[in-house]
């Protein structure tokens, strides 16, 4: 076949699309859905600028076909903020000074979300390892690790405050299976 019909959920919004079979997820997101946070840096899986979450797992969207998306869920940096409020990880990137030219930032954020699902309280070594696939030329990376740790603090504080106030714990996009039931299930390639 030359085109595929897909039902895909991107940032919580369901789409029905017909896509050319040689279209990558990267191109689909940028050109069909206008989600331009997803950056093309190399088109070869070597820079991480196009990282998105696919069913909760970080992938290089340049190496995934849009035709594979049927029934699946995608999260991009555009989907992190909700109801007019930034995600704690986005806030942390700003407050820790982890943003410079900003081109790698959306991919870094997504790898950060994936990392926090795996290690809710990561060490710096775990941060480096889990974000190894995202190249940054500006920051030297340290402040990005700082930002991830700051986000952990922010989320912990928000949860503790909610508990103390007898409120339900806040949920954060992409974290704790907040986005989809499927996210904690085993990834099937």
């Amino acid at each position: 076949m030359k085109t595929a019909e897909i039902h895909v959920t991107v940032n919580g919004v369901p789409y029905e699309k017909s896509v050319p079979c040689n279209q990558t997820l990267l191109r689909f997101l940028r050109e069909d859905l206008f989600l331009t946070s997803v950056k093309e840096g190399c088109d070869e899986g070597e820079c991480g600028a196009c990282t998105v979450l696919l069913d909760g797992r970080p992938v290089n969207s340049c190496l995934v076909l849009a035709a594979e998306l049927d029934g699946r869920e995608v999260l991009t940096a555009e989907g992190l903020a909700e109801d007019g409020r930034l995600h704690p990880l986005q806030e942390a990137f700003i407050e820790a000074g982890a943003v410079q030219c900003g081109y790698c930032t959306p991919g870094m954020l997504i790898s950060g979300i994936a990392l926090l699902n795996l290690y809710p309280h990561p060490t710096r070594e775990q941060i480096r390892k889990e974000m190894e696939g995202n190249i940054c030329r500006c920051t030297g990376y340290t402040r990005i690790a700082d930002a991830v740790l700051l986000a952990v603090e922010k989320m912990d504080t928000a949860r503790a405050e909610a508990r103390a106030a007898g409120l339900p714990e806040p949920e954060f996009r992409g974290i704790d299976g907040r986005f989809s039931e499927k996210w904690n299930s085993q990834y099937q390639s």
Partner: protein
Amino acid sequence: MIKQEKLRPCEKFQQEGREWDRLVVHRKDTTGDEAVVGHTQLRKDAVEKVTGTALYGADVNFPGQLYGALTRSPHPHARIKAVRVEKAKAVPGVRAVVTGADYPEPYGQFIADQPIIALDKVRYQGEPVAAVAAETEEAAREAAALVEVDYEPLPVVNTLEESMKNGTLIHEDWSRYDCSSVCFPVQGTNIGDQFHLKKGDVEKGFAEADLVVESSFRCGQLQHTLIETHTATAIANPYTQDIQVWTPNQSPFGIRGLMAKIFGVPAEKVRLTMTHIGGAFGGKYEAKCEPIAIALSLKSGGRPVKLTYDRHEEFEATVCRSTVQYYIKTGVKKDGTITAQQVTGYWDAGAYVTTNPRVDYNAGFAAHGPYKIPNAQVDTYVYMTNRTLGTAYRGFGVTEAATLHEHQMDIVARKLGMEPLAFRLHNCLHDGDEGITGEIISTCAVEECLRAAAKNVGWDKLPDRWVDEEGNLCGKGIACFNKLTGTPSTTSCVVKMNENGSLYIWSASREMGQGVTTTMPQFAAEALHMDLDRISVAPVDTTMTPYDKTTTSSRSTFHSGNAILEACEDIKRQLCRLAAVKWGCAPENVTYTAGGIIQSKKNPALAIPINEVGKSGIMHEQDPVLAIGRYGTSDIFDPPPVDGRQSKRPTVMWMIGAQAAVVKVNPVTGRVKVVKMGAAHDIGKAINPTGCLQQIEGAIVMGLGHALMEEMIYEEGILRNGNMVDYKVPTFMDSDVETKITLVENGHPEGPFGVKGIGEPGLVPTAAAIAGAVCHACNTDFDSIPIKPEHILFRKEAED
């Protein structure tokens, strides 16, 4: 909707003393108690960048847009016998095909040696030979592959050494080209430019020396590896000749001038709208996609055309940092006093001259470092080869020069039996000393920087080399530098008050991650005592934004800051006049207080705080508040003559800094781990301290790559490692370096609040310090970077 809480800089990272500190040497126009300047401010562009809404070059799209693609030469050097485009034109969806014959006039900033599309000859692998615009990118690429070109391969000049034989000429006749007064090619050779500096008499100096030491050093060819590849989208009307381009370029007015020249239109016909830049570092200074996208748009009847390079094109056919081979000879007295130093250098500039004359020039003035050298000479030559084009790379040649002179300082110190830091301190420049051009040096804190950088790694407690408990060879290294900024250069800005009392700054200083869209408003906020939130930088568009030379050479904060301060003084005057109109008094009876209050002198109760000026009514249907600020350095510049380059003022400011490195080398694997970096940079005044730290931290990891990992490898003019796995920039996993930074504040008399520059300086001493530490650890004079494990395992240890 949940309300977004106000964000503030994370305090943990603001505390001085842990990972960074501040050393105030001299304050200029600052008490240190300013409200906005000198305190970390959140980047103004951060929210759009974390939400993914910031538009970069390739994110701009237009209805009816075509896509460009290029046919590129597989040959590094060949004569073009014929170009046939019929098959390409026949591909469905193709709307335009452009070849070299359409634009036969070459262009170039310093010498017009480069066609936008190759005409009679290709001079590097990947050089464009035809361009196609089509309705889809797929069709454009398909058509580009169908362009037929007959080549007659020519001998390939693969290396500097081959170029220096002048057997095969890349450019047969330099005299055919339009050449500026600052470029010096040599007819009948591959020399595209040269630089000569002469102070005193080096032969006399060597004769006076107790010891003369010679060495050489080579810096490998590097690629900027910007994560955003080059791109441009053009709409060019073939009937009116109006040209519009959306591009992530760091030199809007430079590109405007070049485009006007290439397309034979007046400059005002060229409108460049600047998008966000996904990394520049000098790599987005040249015109790359812009002229080709324009040509395709003209040829397709004015349709919008987007041209974006893929990663392979980016590596093979954009720009790079040239290889340089240096030779250095130093005469020194037994007590460590340098009597003379001579530097000879050869750049492998690639196929076209581009910005190399400026690289050669800047490196030439820095080739001896920040040292007292009574007799000095520099002779450097830009040689052409069949490689991709050399250009600016964060430091404009000075990084390479620093690596050279600091390597030599270590060798001379060892031969003298002096401690490397002590030898540097013995010779370094201080205020009142004579610099390399005969200039009397001022505002020079090199000693403070050296001492602070050393302290930041615990230098005094470490031997030159030792072996740790795991058997690693450990060593320390230190490096300092001085770098000029492009002089003369001018800038201007317009500061416009909106009806609600907020401010726009129009300045062509480009945000490329260095934070200028935050520092510029900081100046205005401080000058006017206005809330920083109410001040922003307008988008940059050459039809509206006032002139600025370029965003390079670490000049923006210094130059634009001065211009903004001037404009803000005018804003104050205008506001006082408007208040006087409202209050019915003479303008001289209204004052603008230091606290940002427009106040009647006679009746202090009549007062308008600046943050409330929009509500005050004084602007209602009055003359709009709009001020101009200008700053230029033509008046203070003493042009260095070509015969020797002696000058009382070759640059408006010297940037000074030092870094120290501690490394450990695994003797089995030959792999190097940079354990610790200590940096100290004289930034004059830290306007946004975290911004300064970001520059230095990022540069350290970038420089680590230059010292140990990165190089472009060519075989017979063919790039072998043009992808992001084989060309190795540091990853997150390579970034584990303990870093301590001292921001040295030695206020510059002409800098706004004393500021100097920090965009490039963070990188300049990094590779030098790391290379020095590796040399110490291995007791070997590695004479090139990157120092690879192979070099380490097969090293030859120094004997003396």
